């Protein structure tokens, strides 16, 4: 059973479209992080959300953390080909022994933005 479920698994859209990807769990997380990973590279951190209900914006990307800290979403406005990549959510589970380091990753959403 995957602790963090991401959906959709694959998404192919045209340049200029908007999209939302989701990250859901039955567990509560102290924080959730979103990463983007390009082929042949390691994940790169985009944002960390820590407070239930928190919304963070990074240019055309909007991240939201659920009120109960069990889910998160990433919305991209006017997608561009440069947004293409694997989007991963990762969390630090509450009651993980205070580790604050053992990240649990979802399987990711593979986004392709066609010009």
């Amino acid at each position, binding site marked *: 059973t995957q602790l*963090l479920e991401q959906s959709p698994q694959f998404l192919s859209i045209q340049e200029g479209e908007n999209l939302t990807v989701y990250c859901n769990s039955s567990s509560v997380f102290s924080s959730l992080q979103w990463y983007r990973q390009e082929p*042949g*590279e*390691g*994940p*790169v*951190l985009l944002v*960390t959300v820590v407070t239930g209900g928190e919304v963070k914006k990074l240019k055309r990307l909007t991240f939201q953390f659920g009120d109960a800290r069990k889910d998160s979403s990433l919305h991209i406005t006017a997608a561009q080909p440069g947004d293409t990549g694997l989007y*991963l959510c*990762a969390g630090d589970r509450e009651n993980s022994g205070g*580790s*604050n*380091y*053992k*990240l*649990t*990753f*979802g*399987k*990711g959403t593979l986004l392709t933005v066609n010009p």
Partner: protein
Amino acid sequence: GAGVSQSPRYKVAKRGQDVALRCDPISGHVSLFWYQQALGQGPEFLTYFQNEAQLDKSGLPSDRFFAERPEGSVSTLKIQRTQQEDSAVYLCASSLGRDEQFFGPGTRLTVL
């Protein structure tokens, strides 16, 4: 500045061979992590070092996997008697402490 580097970038091994994967973290980073990323999956935690101390090795899949960081900087992940299910990308990450982890590009291991 230099990021996390890993070598080799690609490794092909015959089943039963031993392999050693190297990670050079960002200078001064205390924490170092190893993850395994199978095809189509997200990274899975293998082990964690704080300086030279291996504080958590709960993610290592079997006793064929061994990691070390003897001087608190460079780390090596060793896999003995490789098997086909060991084929994956092995990612190393480092951080100053309990904050953002910076990932290397990974080593893609293929076991034939």
